[in-house]
């Protein structure tokens, strides 16, 4: 059945050789600023996006898809911008915490409402909330800067004023630490009792109720996690880009997240980051030639994955790996 939204047993039980490969991947990422400095910003964007994609991935584990998760990405980014504007010389960790908390709080408010729904309603109500926030950002331009958005000044780091290069390097490694830490946390969360209950929503919600557990509570815990992950991604993106615009919340952003989540391998945390990296590379180099038809290509590719490769990249990857091991 729903092969796109299930996952290969990627979490926890992957073979040791595969884990080594992942560690090598992280080391390679850490070496990017020295090996290929011109890719540093690109990878930084991909990592920020990847964190948001993990947020979408969490929901896919419960069999739900949200077409509006850019909402939390954008809320956190705008909170970061507002805090930077009102408190000059604000610390990076200050806005990181403020943005993440803000996204989690918004996740709580929106979540309390949307966790009553599944499937179509869940996906579309999320879309509606993100469109509401988007039009607020566009309409109340005297506060939000309208379509031009707000510029972010460079925050201090633990009280230190960093130069541009030093700050970008700091941001890059912070992103890697956050990706590894939060990625690990999310995988552990899936294995935790709460995470297990949350994933039961996908298979059989009624049985969850028979256990005496509120599916809404389980759903809300996952929703909060997903909103917070998007929040961390949003604040990283905002500081890396130095400007926030309503485009952060636009439905195309949400669609992109869903696309990457399905591309990487729906339900897989590692797949989310792998997907984000591949996506960001292809987008940077291909959109110059295919800017006009970019969304069309994404849509067509999404169809191909859903219909023909429901395990996503991670599914193909692990199948090839398993086959290689079997023959050797």
């Amino acid at each position, binding site marked *: *059945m*729903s092969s*796109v*939204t299930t996952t290969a047993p990627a979490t926890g039980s992957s073979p040791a050789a595969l884990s080594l490969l992942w560690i090598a991947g992280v080391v390679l990422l850490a070496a990017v600023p020295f090996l290929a400095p011109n890719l540093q910003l690109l990878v930084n964007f991909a990592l920020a996006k990847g964190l948001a994609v993990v947020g979408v991935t969490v929901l*896919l584990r419960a*069999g*739900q*898809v949200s*077409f509006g998760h850019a909402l939390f990405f954008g809320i956190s980014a705008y909170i970061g911008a507002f805090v930077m504007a009102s408190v000059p010389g604000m610390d990076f960790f200050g806005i990181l915490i403020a943005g993440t908390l803000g996204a989690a709080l918004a996740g709580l408010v929106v979540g309390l*409402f949307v966790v*009553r*729904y*599944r*499937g*179509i*309603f869940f*996906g*579309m*109500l999320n*879309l*509606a*909330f993100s*469109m*509401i926030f988007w*039009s*607020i950002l566009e*309409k*109340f331009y005297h506060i939000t800067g309208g379509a031009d958005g707000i510029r972010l000044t460079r925050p201090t780091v633990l009280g230190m004023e960093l130069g541009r290069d030093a700050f970008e390097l700091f941001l890059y490694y912070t992103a890697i630490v956050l990706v590894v830490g939060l990625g690990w946390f999310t995988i552990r969360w899936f294995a935790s009792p709460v995470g297990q209950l949350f994933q039961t929503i996908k298979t059989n919600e*009624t*049985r969850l109720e028979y256990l005496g557990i509120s599916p809404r509570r389980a759903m809300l815990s996952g929703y909060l996690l997903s909103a917070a992950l998007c929040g961390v991604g949003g604040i990283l993106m905002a500081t890396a880009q130095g400007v926030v615009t309503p485009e952060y919340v636009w*439905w195309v952003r949400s*669609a992109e997240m*869903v696309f990457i989540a*399905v591309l990487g391998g729906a339900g897989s945390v590692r797949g989310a980051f792998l997907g984000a990296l591949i996506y960001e590379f292809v987008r940077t180099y291909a959109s110059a030639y295919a800017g*006009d*038809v*970019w*969304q*069309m290509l*994404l*849509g*067509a590719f*999404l*169809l191909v994955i*859903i*219909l023909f490769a429901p395990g996503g990249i991670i599914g193909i990857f692990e199948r090839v790996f398993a086959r290689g091991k079997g023959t050797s």
Partner: protein
Amino acid sequence: MNLTTFLLALFDGVSYAALVFIVALGLTLIFGVMRILNVAHGSLYAIGAYATVSLVGWVLALGAAPILAFPLMIVSAILVGVLIGGPVEYLLLRRIYDKPEVLQLLVTFAVFMILEDVQRLVWGTQPYFEAQALRALGNVTVFGVTYTVYQLILLPLVALTLLVGLRFFLRRTVTGKLITATTEDREAAQSIGIDADRVFLLTFVMGAILAGLGGALASPTTSILPGMGADMIVLSFAVVATAGLGQIEGAAIAALMIGMGRSFAIYIWPEVAVLVPYLIMVLVLLVRPEGLFGSPAARKI
């Protein structure tokens, strides 16, 4: 608020509600029969509008009478339904009826992404405006308020005709009864010889035509630009969700509520006008999670 602004808001609301209803009708019909929410519905609406502007502009440039714009709207709507709706159902949706709801949603969403770019490729990003049809019918004055006949009389009339016509079609004609039977129980319908595949194709094309017609009728009243499809799918979903998915008469009432709410907000508190439809939806869903006229789905254990 004096009588004039009250009437203006009322008329705005009615004509807006009529347009949204026509689009929402197609969305709720497709959902009611096929249990699929077609996210690409908004694109069909936008393409209907674009096609009308191009077609009307081209024919009127040949020196035809402006009144010809009306049959051309119907032609564009049918073209959209048959040339886009048909292949989408036949080539794509047909493969995924037995898949989980989330996958179906993703597939129609992918179609939506593709069609959004198709519009931009064909018609560019410049806004279009073509109001010949609006001018052809002239104005009418009610209690000292002058309003266009097109928006005040034609649009609500079309919406009402579609509502009554669809009811009649589903309940009184053989084809309509086949659709209703398939909706009730697909397997039972197939076992007595109903071709469910054809019923689904027909339903989807009809729904797509309604989306295209909504766009065609909207084209003289608004400028046509990229992004209108995304706005419309969210708005018509708000209408359909407020009414309860699959509720045809309910969609008419919900469209009126949302249309009125929005148009009165424009005169009272314009900044929040775009938010009013969603506020109405959220308020209704807080009290009745299945929508105003929806009934809770039976739970499978």
